[in-house]
């Protein structure tokens, strides 16, 4: 009898793969034109400066080329993408007022339950608009602002938004940052006042329901001096046979001696082009911690970057990527050391399976004034079969001598020696391999909030068959 191969299953996406009708939703035409951008701006009641910003971004978009270095995105045709889809509802702070279909969607994803049990506030975006946003009273009373970007843009925080919006990720950064500048919609605005420590996390969840649509939410977080926040971002979509696009933008401003942890669990469907941009800047003594789980998307370009501007600032990136059948996930991080005595640490894991392609890409840049800085990179990749692929492309650009930079990377399959050792202790081969894979992902899962760690472990299901014989 032929011995069956020990397998690690693809991620079970059935919990995300459901959809509701979007027939009565407001949509702009497919494609990207000046008229469409003006139409979005009008629908969103943009202030004049934002309308001008969108048009300028569109000009930049038209001038920039698609990247020549990453995964193939020729299957993405902007002429087929609907850039704005507004659900037939208004943003509310009452869960009861959310329309039934949308409410069902987030109920199935467990968002309200999570809000009740373990979150300080929740934002839920459905296609291009926030449909629900709420923050606990005790957090509001501390002066923490957690609202949708549109409210922030037209309300009392307009000047603060204007001062920070796309200043860290300018539209000139790359083609899809420019696209975001032109058609962005939705997202969250968070402001944590000086010295305020938010003990329990805030979460935004982004759901893209419409086929052939794009989601371009903007997340802007300002953590003032000495403040502390944990922000969680989740995203998913049902699978369609046409391409969907996610080109969000996250800008994080971390003040002097402030700390922000930004956790992401990304479960986009396998028809999604995830071309997201995330960037943080840390002032003196500030800390940014990224925790990132990338499980979904057809193609991903995702490299959260940290600008360590202030002296003694610190950044950490902990990430795991699981690339299965039909996926080409290009993920990693960028660290830019500007200030003195800055430090950064990158620890990533990637798993490739069933023809999936996983690429770890990173850059460490140490500028001339960043004396006494330290950076360390560790990336490990696990190949689960011989039809998959895993690459590591880590760059280090060092422009001063007073630094300590370390890098290590390893690629391979499950070690036969480790399996043998565990089996010699009475553990079956199946269990031994399952333990090794779980242990491989453990450094990342232990950084996630408990319920997300459980979800991640559920996502990576192990199926062992007939190893004896």
């Amino acid at each position, binding site marked *: 009898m032929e011995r069956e191969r020990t397998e690690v299953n693809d991620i079970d996406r059935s919990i995300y793969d459901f959809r509701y009708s979007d027939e009565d939703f407001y949509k702009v035409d497919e494609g990207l034109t000046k008229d469409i951008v003006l139409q979005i701006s009008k629908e969103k009641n943009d202030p004049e400066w934002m309308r001008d910003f969108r048009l300028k971004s569109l000009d930049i978009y038209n001038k920039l080329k698609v990247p*020549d*270095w990453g995964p193939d995105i020729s299957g993405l045709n902007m002429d087929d993408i609907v850039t704005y889809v507004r659900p037939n509802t208004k943003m509310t702070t009452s869960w009861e007022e959310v329309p039934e279909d949308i409410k069902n969607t987030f109920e199935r994803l467990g968002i309200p339950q999570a809000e009740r049990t373990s979150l300080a506030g929740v934002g839920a975006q459905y296609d291009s608009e926030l449909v629900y946003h709420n923050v606990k009273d005790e957090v509001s009373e501390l002066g923490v602002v957690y609202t949708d970007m549109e409210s922030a843009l037209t309300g009392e925080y307009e000047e603060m938004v204007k001062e920070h919006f796309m200043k860290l990720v300018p539209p000139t950064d790359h083609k899809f940052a420019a696209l975001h500048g032109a058609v962005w919609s939705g997202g969250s605005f968070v402001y944590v006042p000086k010295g305020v420590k938010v003990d329990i996390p805030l979460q935004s969840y982004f759901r893209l329901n419409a086929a052939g649509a794009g989601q371009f939410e903007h997340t802007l977080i300002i953590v003032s001096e000495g403040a502390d926040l944990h922000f969680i971002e989740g995203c998913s979509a049902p699978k369609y046979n046409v391409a969907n696009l996610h080109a969000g933008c996250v800008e994080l401003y971390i003040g002097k001696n402030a700390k922000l942890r930004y956790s992401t669990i990304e479960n986009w469907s396998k028809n999604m082009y995830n071309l997201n941009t995330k960037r943080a800047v840390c002032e003196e003594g500030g800390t940014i911690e990224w925790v990132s789980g990338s499980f979904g998307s057809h193609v991903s370009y995702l490299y959260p970057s940290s600008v360590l501007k202030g002296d003694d600032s610190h950044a950490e990136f902990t990430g795991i990527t699981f690339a299965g059948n039909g996926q080409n996930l290009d993920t990693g991080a960028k660290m830019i050391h500007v200030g003195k005595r800055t430090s950064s640490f990158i620890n990533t894991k990637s798993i490739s399976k069933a023809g999936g392609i996983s690429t770890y*890409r990173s*850059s460490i840049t140490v500028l*001339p004034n960043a*004396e006494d800085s330290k950076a360390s990179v560790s990336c490990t*990749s696990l*190949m*689960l*079969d*011989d039809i*998959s*692929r*895993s*690459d*590591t*492309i*880590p*760059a*280090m*650009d*060092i*422009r*001063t*001598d*007073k*630094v*300590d*930079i*370390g*890098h*290590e*990377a*390893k*690629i*391979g*399959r499950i070690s036969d020696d480790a399996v043998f050792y565990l089996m010699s202790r009475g553990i079956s081969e199946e269990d031994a391999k399952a333990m090794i894979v779980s242990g491989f992902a453990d450094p990342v899962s232990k950084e996630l909030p408990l319920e997300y760690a459980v979800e991640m472990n559920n996502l990576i299901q192990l199926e062992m068959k007939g190893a004896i014989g």
Partner: protein
Amino acid sequence: MSNRLTEMTVNKLPTLTWNFLKINDIKVKEDIELNGRGQITIRNIPDGVIIGNAGCEDCGGCAVSKIMETTNSITNGMGPEAKEFFDSVCDKSLVIRAKKNAKIDEPLCISYNMANGDANAVKQVIIAEEGSNITVVMDYNSKSSDSGFFGVQTILHACRGATINLVKIELLGKGYVHFDDIGGSCDNEGIINTVQMILGGKKSYVGLNVDLAGYKSRYSGNTGYLCINDQFLDMNYYIGHRGKKSEGELTVKGALRDEAVKTFRGTIDLKHGAKGAKGDELEETLLLSEKVKNNTLPVILCDEDDVEGAHGATIGRLSKDMLFYMESRGFSEHEAEVLMTKGKLNSIRNLITDQSSIGKIQHYMEEAFRDE
């Protein structure tokens, strides 16, 4: 035939990364008329080694020509534009052959003696026929104050069970532009070992591409460099694993001082079908002045599960612990840095057995640190 070195793009990565890093390749911006000057000295031609010229008028149809046909398909390290350059300016190749089953202990030594204003490019082919082994030691030298251009392309073919040991020592003057373009291929159980000491020159472009095509084929590369003043060094190493149980190992160590600029690209490519292959690379860079620039990009490409790929890099100044220890033994900080630099380079130099070459390296290093 053209006789000019003009602009070209070399040392391109096999897979690209962000353009803002400016590390995907390097543009050579020179305009040099080649004059063919420079003197070659070959000493110690051991028994079992045949030296000839391919491309000479009277060699049509000879064995050398046939061998050249097989080596033409070997990919060079600096890339297609460099290959085109060497093909256009070199009408002959120096062909060195180790006869079948010849076990040659003595190294074949080749010196390229350059002078001020010399501008020349040469092609070499080294073939170790089945079961043979050969060691070739070559140095490129000129007076410290000389300027000019010297390019050398070296194609290596280790046939079944054969070993090529190649030692290259670059001791050109402070105004020299240098190309060192290496391509290699290993058949079943074929082995290529390279040791490179890159010490001189103003601008050095080094490319190496080794195709581990054969079962249990092996490559081991060790490179040491010292970049001081405004020296510029751009390296591109690529080790392609195609053969089952092939093994590749690359170690690059060196130091940067003053306003030196160095780029290292090292790629281990574990191709589909290379079951049981192992690739490993290590880079250690000592940074000795605040205005140095260092770029490092160690790449692993993996298209097979039953393989092992690893790389590690350490970049920085002398560790504080080491410095404290050295100072407690009476060394100044500067003396400690010199000592550690020599230590790094000597760990590569010690792999060279030819005493004459060791002497030249030693002399160069002493001169380099004499300015202190």
